[in-house]
């Protein structure tokens, strides 16, 4: 594993985002707007379904916000035509996937630094919320899985004409097991419940999900970029 090349590629993504400011701000605005929408959708003044429903909606928001960000993955390579330069380099193709996964994870985490407090503000004022350590752990684990799978699929969709529609279509079936488990693990820690061993098991599932798609992403990315 070429650590120097990986660092350089991630640095490239971060520098480009810092200067272009396309992805992270858009995702932050998107997630805030989504929360407002959900709040009103769930009843506005009185929260229908209470904190349980709100926590579920948080995960929906996380997935859709991630998709907004993923749609810009590899956009610099595609629009600038720089893929040829990268592909001609003597590095394992999977490294490009690994670098994109790291950057995506960082972008997701950056947005969630804003999103989670916003979530607390919009939904958790009236009633008690889920356990925050569990919530943060679940969010970070989910971020890894989304980044791994999302980078692979974004690479695939990137060279297809209908990419804006295709990426969500390809991604969403895979988000279902993730959301199912994440919703369960977080809502189960809303008082009076406390979670317990089941919580660890479900967090473990998220880690398993991450492992599976990390392995698949690593193995399959070269088939996505070769021409």
């Amino acid at each position, binding site marked *: 594993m*070429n650590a*120097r*090349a990986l*660092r*350089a*590629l991630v*640095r*490239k993504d971060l*520098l*480009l985002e810092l*200067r*272009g400011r396309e992805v992270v701000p858009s995702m932050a605005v998107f997630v805030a707007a989504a929360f407002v929408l959900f709040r009103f959708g769930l009843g506005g003044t009185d929260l229908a379904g209470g904190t349980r429903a709100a926590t579920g909606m948080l995960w929906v928001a996380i997935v859709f916000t991630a998709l907004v960000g993923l749609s810009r993955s590899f956009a*610099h390579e595609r629009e*600038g*035509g*720089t*893929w*040829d*330069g*990268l*592909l*001609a*380099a*003597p*590095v394992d193709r999977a490294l490009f996937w690994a670098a994109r996964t790291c950057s995506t994870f960082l972008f997701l985490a950056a947005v969630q630094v804003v999103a989670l407090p916003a979530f607390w503000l919009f939904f958790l004022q009236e009633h008690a919320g889920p356990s925050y350590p569990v919530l943060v752990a679940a969010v970070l684990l989910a971020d890894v899985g989304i980044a791994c799978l999302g980078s692979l699929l974004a690479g695939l969709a990137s060279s297809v004409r209908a990419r804006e529609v295709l990426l969500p279509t390809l991604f969403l079936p895979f988000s279902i097991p993730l959301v199912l488990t994440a919703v369960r693990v977080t809502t189960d820690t809303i008082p009076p419940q406390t979670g317990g061993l089941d919580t660890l098991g479900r967090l473990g599932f998220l880690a398993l999900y991450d492992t599976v798609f990390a392995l698949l992403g690593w193995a399959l990315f070269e088939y996505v970029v*070769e*021409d």
Partner: protein
Amino acid sequence: MRSSETIVCAGLRRRFGERDALAGLDFVVEAGETVLVTGPNGAGKTTLLRILATVLRPTSGRVAVSGHELPARAADVRREVGYAGHDPLAYPDLTARENLELYAALYAVPDARVAEELDRVGLDGRRGDRAAELSRGMLQRLALARVGLHRPSIVLLDEPTAGLDAEGRDVLRRFLAEPGRTIVVATHEPAWFDGLGGRVVAMAAGRVAA
């Protein structure tokens, strides 16, 4: 294949959808040769270079670079090949230096060489400027810096004279005059290279023109 043949193509074919960009190309380049590939648009020059750079896979036929068969041994070829494509292959929002530092990392080349190469192509003063702020001629020079970074023994240039400025012309001529490299240039202006001792190969419709 004789050991002095650095590049060998036999019956090389590359299909895009319904169209054959390369339709059975036979092409040989000896070690240390400079070859100018000419031909109209659509003749397949860019496709040929991209296949030699291992960026594109052949559909059928045989292609070998430095004794390595493509696409099977593509990974072995990349270190020895420097490729400057039609586009500058630079990230607009990264500075000239940052662009080269990325490639230095990808090619496992010490960072110090970045400054050397920028100096060699006369972009040392502009190294902190974003690629988007550089003129077309400067971007061409930046591409030449990138290509030279890892001291490849085989260099593939696609239309290197397009948009080249005065200083760039000198840089390119000096680059091409350096001995010991096998060079393939796709160009619309073979006359520009007069005096550099290049052999001309004309292509048409995906094959070497008769």
